[in-house]
């Protein structure tokens, strides 16, 4: 088990290095020199001034040197300064992260809580009307992107019913209820697809588990169906669910960009978009690497959790 963790961690470091280098490469190789973002075009007539700025920002060094310097700072938590606001990238990330983190946690929590009972019921009543209804709804949810769901919810719950605010954000420190009122619609918009994906996974997995011998022997012991479903079948299925949740974090991270834009939430995704519109390359680079790092870390964590939940893997190494 120890060597497994060690191997996994070595791979993690390798992936992170590659991810950061690729991002750096993208930002620095693609057309659109950073100097354009630093100095207005008409000011670029002054060659000396341009040269001075280039030197100041280290744009004249070879790329590998610049990458090394940037990486050295980045591992210490310094992603450089925004070239637009001149605040540090890391302080902006730190400031914006709680919003996105809460949005994703609420989305995943909501989805898992709904998907598990739905998937289990559909598997238990496989082929019946109930199963058809659940699977049908999942199929529809799977086709509704976050921005369409979000617009629908804004129209219905904010404009027509006036129950919830259409846009904006209340920090958790402003009170739990006010905070929840601003997070519920964005989270629900993102949750539709997640609910659909998780429900399908749980359904097919529980259906397979129900064929196992140990389910038959659990029945022969006189355990109630509900107990067998939730205490015997769900555990093996939860392994698959954890993996799928981990893999889906990538789509979800993309989704938060769209939903934060739609609901005007001051999260990481919105910040990335702003940086994109402002061509703030330090910010784009910092947030992209940060987001990819989170995604990679989550999937490594999933692998490790997998090992904790399944005693067979735990002992195998």
């Amino acid at each position, binding site marked *: 088990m120890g060597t497994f963790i060690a191997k996994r961690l070595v791979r993690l470091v390798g992936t992170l290095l590659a991810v950061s280098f690729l991002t750096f490469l993208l930002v620095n190789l693609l057309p659109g020199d950073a100097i354009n973002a630093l100095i207005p075009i008409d000011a670029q007539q002054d060659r000396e001034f341009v040269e001075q700025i280039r030197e100041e920002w280290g744009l004249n060094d070879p790329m590998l040197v610049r990458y090394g310097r940037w990486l050295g700072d980045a591992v210490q938590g310094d992603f450089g300064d925004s070239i637009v606001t001149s605040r540090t990238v890391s302080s902006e990330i730190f400031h914006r992260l709680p919003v996105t983190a809460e949005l994703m946690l609420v989305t995943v929590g909501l989805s898992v809580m709904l998907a598990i009972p739905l998937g289990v019921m559909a598997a238990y009543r496989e082929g019946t009307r109930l199963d058809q209804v659940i699977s049908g709804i999942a199929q529809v949810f799977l086709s509704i992107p976050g921005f369409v769901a979000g617009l629908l919810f804004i129209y219905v719950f904010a404009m027509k019913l006036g129950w919830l605010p259409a846009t904006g954000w209340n920090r958790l420190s402003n009170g739990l209820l006010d905070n929840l009122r601003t997070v519920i619609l964005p989270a629900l918009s993102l949750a539709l697809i997640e609910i659909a994906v998780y429900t399908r996974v749980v359904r097919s997995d529980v259906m397979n588990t129900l064929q196992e011998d140990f389910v038959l*022997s659990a*029945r022969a012991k006189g355990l109630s169906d509900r107990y067998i479903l939730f*205490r015997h079948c769900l555990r093996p299925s939860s392994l698959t669910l954890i993996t799928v949740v981990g893999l889906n974090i990538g789509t979800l991270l993309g989704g938060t960009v769209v939903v934060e834009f739609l609901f005007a939430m001051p999260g990481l995704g919105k910040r990335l978009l702003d940086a994109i519109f402002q061509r703030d390359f330090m910010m784009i680079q910092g947030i992209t690497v940060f987001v990819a790092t989170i995604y990679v870390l989550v999937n490594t964590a999933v692998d490790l959790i997998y090992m904790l939940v399944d005693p*067979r893997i735990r002992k195998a190494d």
Partner: protein
Amino acid sequence: MSDAVETDRRLLTVTDLRTTFSIAAGDVQAVRGVSFALDRGRTLGIVGESGCGKTVLARSIMRLNLGSNVTTTGTAEFAGRDLLSLPMADMHEMWGMELAMVFQDPMTSLNPLVRVGRQVTEHLRQHLGVGRAEAARTAVDLLNEVRIPEPEARLKAYPHELSGGMRQRICIAIALACEPALLFADEPTTALDVTVQHQILNLLGREQRERDMAMVLVTHDLGVVAGRTDDTLVMYAGMVVEQAPTGSLFEEMRHPYSEALLRSLPRTSQVSHTRLAAITGRPPDLIDPPSGCAFSPRCPYVQPRCREEVPPLSAVDDPDHRFACWTPVGSPEGMAAFARNVAEGLPQAVAVDLTAPSSTGSGGAS
């Protein structure tokens, strides 16, 4: 099978049980009209090749055949109530409490992700509302009972950390936990090492005697049944072909299929390198079973009548020993039929004649 036993000892009476699975290819008639009775504290062996319907029979009585494509008819009266017409909620009360089952493969019949301790006691707690602490004490007692060393440590283990024999002992402990009146043991030793098989069978036998529990031992191996059960039922193609107290069955096998099963068993008394007689041919198609006796296509004693009329299950001289055959082993008709078939060169008869010429004349008539 003795009718002399007073009726209050009677635990289970199965009458004309039939089970059919509807699949795309047609209706598989897995059990085709089985009847038997079992008294409290007695043991019954059900013997037959795989696919003969013995496992389906046991699961049908326990109502454990899952799926909407299964239909079971007939009655299985258990302590005065017909199990087959009981509401499902009542069956949940019967399972574990009154009826229990030990399955063939202890590798797969325990949940790999749940500790042994919970699996041994969860039904105790659900059925009897036993608390956590008392359940833990009972679990230790049960594991001691089935001779598992260091029970406390084993209860914390996961199934894959235990050997096959150990796991089957756990399964037996689970089955015994609520003191059931009837235990089905479905091929309990088939998946185990030969060295462990005897220990498990002895354990089952001891528990059965000490608890005055009735037991149905389902097996493909006549050797398992010998000396361990009071009565034996030989099944072929979903029907009972011979039924007798185990002692008299081994003394005098009357059905050609029982005889063939016995002949295919290796025996220590045999000279080494003796060829074992496999039964020629294949078990019949249960979607469209052959007319007449189902064993007739493979039977060394087969006569034209066997292919047309199904022989009834009936007794000749011993009222407890019943069999379904027109040309029973050891009868003058049987010997004549066999001789005729050998002379005509019928393959299955010739095969028997070659491998074990001396055994054909065994039985009372020789």
